């Protein structure tokens, strides 16, 4: 196996049951439907797509927080879903999660010190004094001062809270961090601070990021590779350059063209999609995007396109490519 690969995601499926348990006709939301990709060591892989397309679910499943209906997540050669509880707990140290809403991700009843002590407590790492030192160190790294430790989350600003969340994720020296929209809830001026921090930390600790966002500018800025999701499917993956400059999938094209641009002198043409994202409970037949696709053909509503390597390292799932 390729040494440079940290995580292999293979044919992952994660369905949520929607009807009550007593019902005979079970219905599913296919939040993640047969997704495969690799995460390389030290890279930042961006995951974009519209709300509800399954980005967060994918992230969480990769972490092993959900039990998938099918598929594997191979982390450093081991399928995490076949691990025993104890090994899984060990594995947890290596992967962490940063959340979108910094307020919601911190327990409002705990002080920052408690929150940061939690990873050490759970894994029984170090003595009290060692832990204290480590916590202090963590605070330094994310740019918070020691006096913040005795505060409660609600006494801090959004950016500060997000730093605490990052510090917690870093506590156990993980290799992979899944960033689920880490900056979406932050103000523009704070957003930049956090993005820079994430970049610095990555360099320092050789972290791998799975970076989920619907802000394509941010993804463009921070990611090496990008995956575009639509209705539970990965429709295009490739290098940052491939995706933004040589877009293949019509949906990805529309997405990128929809980014509001900041140059008033060069207004660009926009691909306007019609209609809304269909419900993942009841996805369209064939290519899931065909209902909104400006380039659809008859084939699109019948056959489901597979993700194929159109250019080296640049995959797309479209009949037209």
């Amino acid at each position, binding site marked *: 196996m390729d040494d440079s690969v940290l995580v292999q995601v293979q044919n992952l499926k994660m369905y949520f049951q929607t009807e*009550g*348990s*007593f019902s005979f006709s079970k219905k599913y939301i296919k939040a993640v439907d047969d997704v495969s990709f690799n995460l390389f060591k030290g890279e930042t892989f961006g995951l974009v797509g519209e709300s509800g397309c399954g980005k967060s679910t994918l992230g*969480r499943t990769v*972490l092993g*927080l959900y039990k998938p209906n099918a598929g594997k997540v191979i982390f450093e050669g081991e399928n995490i879903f076949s691990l025993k509880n104890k090994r*899984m*707990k060990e594995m*947890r*140290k290596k*992967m*962490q*999660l940063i*959340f*979108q*809403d910094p307020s*919601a*991700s*911190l*327990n*409002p*009843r705990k002080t920052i010190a408690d929150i940061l002590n*939690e*990873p050490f407590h*759970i*894994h029984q790492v170090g003595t009290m004094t060692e832990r204290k030192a480590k916590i202090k160190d963590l605070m330094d790294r994310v740019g918070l001062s020691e006096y913040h430790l005795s505060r409660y989350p609600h006494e801090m600003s959004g950016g500060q809270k997000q730093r605490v*969340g990052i510090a*917690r994720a870093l506590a*156990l020296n993980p290799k992979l961090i899944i960033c689920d929209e880490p900056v979406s809830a932050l103000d523009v001026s704070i957003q930049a601070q956090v993005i820079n921090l994430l970049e610095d930390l990555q360099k320092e600790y050789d972290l791998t990021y799975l970076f989920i966002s619907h802000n394509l500018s941010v993804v463009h800025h921070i990611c090496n590779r990008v995956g575009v999701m639509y209705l539970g499917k990965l429709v295009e993956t490739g290098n940052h350059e491939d995706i933004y400059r040589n877009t293949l999938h019509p949906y990805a094209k529309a997405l990128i063209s929809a980014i509001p641009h900041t140059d008033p002198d060069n207004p660009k043409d926009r691909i306007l999609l019609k209609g809304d994202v269909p419900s993942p409970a009841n996805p369209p037949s064939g290519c899931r995007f065909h209902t909104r696709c400006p380039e659809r053909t008859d084939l699109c509503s019948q056959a489901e396109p597979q993700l194929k390597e159109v250019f080296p390292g640049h995959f797309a799932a479209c009949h037209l490519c």
Partner: protein
Amino acid sequence: MLLRIMKNNLLFSIGIIVCALWILIAIVTVLVPSITPYSYLAQDLANRFQAPSSAHWFGTDSIGRDVFSRVLVGSRISLIAGLITIALASLMGMIYGGIAGYIGGLTDEIMMRISEMVMAFPGIILAMTIAAALGPSLHNTLLAMVIIWWPNYARVMRSMVIANKENEYVEAAKSLGASHFRIFFNEIMPNSLGPVLVLATLDFGNAILLFSGLSFLGLGSPPPTPEWGAMVADGVLNFNYWWIGTFPGLAILTMSVGTNFIGDSLRDFLDPRLRKEI
């Protein structure tokens, strides 16, 4: 905080004062039994059915006992009954609802149907049956009340746990490898407790009310315990001596109004949606 709420909320202040007074009376009559003008047990057949007077402020009952003294001493039973019922019912409901909400799925469904069944069950009849079967006593009545009451808490607790379960800090704990036990008790429980406790304060008056109703039906502790509900029943029996039933009834009313004033204001205060002015 207490003072701040009290300052601009008349009803709340009244509630606090009334309840404090009753608690004080309950404590003092326990510590210094001689403080009541008469012993609450002292019978005086020569002076039965005395109307309220300076000697007997609330009059005397069918065997010449001083109603005032009995009303004062009765406070402790009502308070204790309310307290125990609410404490046990909320404890039981919290555990039950917590488990149902946390585990979810089929377990949740079955557990909730069961609790719904208990809720659908006519409470007073259940209590009366239990009391009739096991014999009326404070003990059995409280048992019946707890059985009737816990599903309320189970429901609230469950919905809180379900809401809190979705919180990202729970997921954070999970991703750190925390055990279910730790997640449940450390992350979910503390944050779900608030509404349950509010419900409990609000419910205190209701518990006192139900208890007095049951003891009115003769299901409380046996005589000569001065239970307010039973005293009102005595008043109905001796209908034409209005004071026998009126004063204990007023006692129930004040205590339950007091706790309700507090609970009501507290809820208004704690509910941020209501605090936000229109």
